[in-house]
């Protein structure tokens, strides 16, 4: 028998709010280590939220152990369990990024994207952000342009180049 009542308990809701709030606060920081810690806190908060949404507390969902007490919802638990392990994988990845950043720059702060800033700067100046041959006006006439185009025709390879 599964717990069907899903009235949330206030303390757990509070825990969700604090974990998510603190997580977001850290997530918006520049040092990757803090971003990582924020990510872990946020994940914990969301995991807890999933569990609360699944229903109220109950006995452990093991058939035969519960006796008469209804069991807590196993589906929410299975989902949360996978989420916990994935959090580990992603945390490790961010950590590796932080280490790599430290290795390259001597710190683990996320810098602004250089290319994005350049594009924004050029846009502010109304200067072309990249070279676009399709938009460039060369001022050459069609005739002049056509004179530069010559096919690789038969005979070019026959040593008659001098005859040109």
């Amino acid at each position, binding site marked *: 028998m599964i717990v069907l009542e899903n009235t949330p308990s206030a303390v757990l809701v*509070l825990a969700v709010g604090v974990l998510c709030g603190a997580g977001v606060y850290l997530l918006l920081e520049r040092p990757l280590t803090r971003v990582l810690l924020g990510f872990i806190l946020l994940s914990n908060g969301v995991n807890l939220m999933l569990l609360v949404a699944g229903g109220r507390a109950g006995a452990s969902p093991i058939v035969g152990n519960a006796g008469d007490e209804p069991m807590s919802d196993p589906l929410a638990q299975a989902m949360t369990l996978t989420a916990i392990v994935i959090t580990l994988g992603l945390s490790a990845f961010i950590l*590796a990024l932080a280490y790599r950043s430290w290795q390259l720059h001597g710190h683990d702060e996320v810098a602004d994207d250089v290319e994005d800033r350049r594009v924004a700067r050029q846009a502010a100046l109304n200067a072309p952000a990249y070279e676009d041959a399709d938009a460039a006006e060369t001022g050459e006439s069609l005739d002049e342009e056509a004179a530069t185009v010559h096919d690789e025709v038969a005979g070019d390879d026959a040593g008659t180049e001098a005859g040109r």
Partner: protein
Amino acid sequence: MLPVLLLTFALALSAPVLVARLGRRAFWILALGPAAAAGYALASTTAVLDGRYPVTSIPWVPGLDLSLDLRLDALSWLMLLVVGGVGALVLVYCSAYFARDAFGTGRFAATLTAFSGAMIGLVVADDLLLLFVFWELTTVFSYLLIGHYADRKASRRAAMQAIVVTTAGGLVMLVGLIVLGVSTGTWRLSEVVAAPPTGTAAVVASLCLVAGAATKSALVPFHFWLPAAMAAPTPVSAYLHAAAMVKAGVYLVARFAPGLSGEPVWRWSVVALGGATLLVGGYRALRQHDLKLVLAFGTVSQLGLLVLLLGLGTRAAALAGLALLGAHAMFKATMFLVVGAVDVATGTRDLRRLSGLWRAMPVTAAAGLLATASMIGVPPTAGYVAKEAALEGLWHDVTHGADALEVAALAAVVVGSILTVTYGLRFWWGAFGTKASPADGGAPDGGTPAVPHRRQPVLLVAPPAVLALGGLLVALVPSAGERVLAPYADTYPAGDPGHLVLWGGLTPALATSAVVLAAGAVLFWQRVRVERWQSAMPSPRGADVVYRRSMRRLDDLAADVTGATQRGSLPFYLGIVLVVLAVAPGAVILSGLLSGSTVAVDVVPWDRPAQAAVVGIVVVAAVLATRARRRLKAVVLVGVAGYANAALFLLHGAPDLALTQVLVETVTLVVLVLVLRRLPPYFTDRPLAASRWVRLALGVTTGVVMMALTLAAPLARVQQPISVDFPAESVEYGSGRNIVNVTLVDIRAWDTVGELSVLLVAATGVASLVFLRQRSGAVLRLSRAPGADRDDGGPRRGVWLAAGRTLTPERRSVMFEIVTRLVFHAMVVFALFLLFSGHNSTGGGFAAGMVVGIALAVRYLAGGRYELGEAMPVPPGLLLGTGLFLSAGVGLVALLGGNEVLESFTYDVHVPLLGDVHLVTSLFFDVGVMLLVVGLVLDLLRTLGAEIDRQGELPENVVAVVGEGSR
């Protein structure tokens, strides 16, 4: 039709191989594709004449109403003959035209053949969407062909311009086709034309289709891409820009005119665009010096004439248009091929540098003369027959009370024809004539005129000669042409039927022709004056300049949008995401609260009182973690919050979650501390910026919204949860009593497989970030440790950990080594217990893998990286791969028994001594999970532990180089 189409595309695919094997001769084989198309058209002539149109219909994408409907009526027959015949001749011509070692011949041959295939498909398609598919294919292939010499800026520019213009038009055309399909309820082209829509749908469709045709057939104001596309190799110009691609727009107009030319908007736009193009092209052709450019503007002009005649909607004009369509393909392709031959012979196309070639290249000059005669309408050529029919038809209508539109059309045709005569004569004189003086257009630099210095291969001379003679021959039997083409012209709604004749008596049309020829000849005679007058005239800013300016504006707009949205700041992006998260649901909740329409939610203070105490710990730890400036302190506080979370799980009745959370938290802490060894102890000192308050506000808002969502979540439940059946199902089908574990390995096993792949990817990502150049380093066995050779080898008595001696003495701890020695095996046994009992009580693959991982971590911490190598002497990739294979791959075995993937089975086996063993196949799944998790943790220890150790022991400059390597 389908076999011809498939043959051509198959030839295109094999073209690179053929060219590599046979060189230029491969073009002969490739020519078989279009030749087969032309042959098929000829073979079907009787059937088409009798009105028994060959039809093929194969469903392709029924959901999109897209099917391979092919149909060969009189118009398609003509187009197929043109596309196939000219295509085959041009391919043969290519074999003599290009140099033996020319760049990218294989690719060129493939693209050109594929283009002819797309063109064949386009002209026989009888499905609106199929027509569009082939239409766009021709656009793409023509882009590749124009840009064949991709190393030249002019080619790239021309190709880009052509594809932008024609694709834009193609999309507009697609809108028109969809309007037609939806408003008529059928996607069959022939049915749509037979029963066209009326009203708004017809107006929209007309405008869209004319726009598509205008871009494809280079009508004003989109004519500029065609002259620029002369950057393509000359055979491409001969095929695409005379006979095939640009005719697609003309074909479109001819195809839909019987249905839509009753619409005034269709007629007006067609006559306006066609007439303007006819005049602009002719006018500008007079000013060019490059022979290909003369022809290009001439083509623009002729395309205008064709669209005008075929779109006007009267039968006589349509018949003349169809005849001119065929004649134009022959004479214009001939002229381009002739220019190619001149180019090969002399190395130039500048008509000011050519003189007296008619003597040196008599056959080519004769072919050129015939083609020119056909273009300007000298009897007895195909061009003359067509133009005479056009004038005759227009005169007839004008004298029988036609509207002003037709009068305008007649005037445009007359003036345009005069210009055609002038630039036609100029072309032939420019290519082959003998020039007397520089004033007469001789060499501009005063240098010697170019002379032919290369021999003329027969394959370079024959194709244009064949085409030119063809233009003469069909003109000698105009009644045959009329018999084939009249049935299609008669499907037009208005006007009296026209006729194709060589001699129609002394009519106004004949007189007009004579005047046109005379006026054109006079203009040519006075060419120096005309040229002077033209250069004195102010030339308006070209349409191509307008095009380039608008492309520039587009670039600017894109840069502005990018600059405004892509700020390059990670916190900014995250902030946007979170603001959306907080604002969207938050606004809904807030508006509900304000309007009083919310449903009251029930809350209990707690499920168990102990929860309150644990939540207190969580809150304090989380808040302190946000304020910590010291890395280690922050990490430990986050760890405390994590462990407290595990306690909450346990209190909630989720022992599996609690166990996993504790283990994961432990591994996370270990790994974090391993990396923190290398990072500075404090976070970078940053001034208290205003942004801190923004972050605080965003954090608090998100927290509050998440709380509100958690409170509101129960309201979303309107059905009984699916998990009520899980207890019974897990025992019955999964043969396990731990419902969470059975859910993971059986009921929702696909989720777990997905999760395992994420873990594998994450582990690989971590390894590649740290190892940089390889998946992972070598397994560090003790025998490879520095100083290992000094030992006598083999584990010695009295040593707790074999690799302990590889550590420096100050890093060693004997107590730790002893404890490690004692607990390691116990932990591994415990992990196995968790694995096997997990199906029925708390535990399972995840927990077991984590416990093994922690055991490995203990070994590593106590004995260093060589100890880790001794403890698990396999690369982590092997564990990860085996794990994923066991969990996902073994699940496939169930397919063999005709069951669902990942379905589990139970076997009761009697084993001597042990008694009855209850074996569930999902155990393999769980073993796979365990192996993968062990692999993940091992990967983390080896990279973030062992490899960072190693890099830390390297001298500074080596680390710098390691860092450089990946930039």
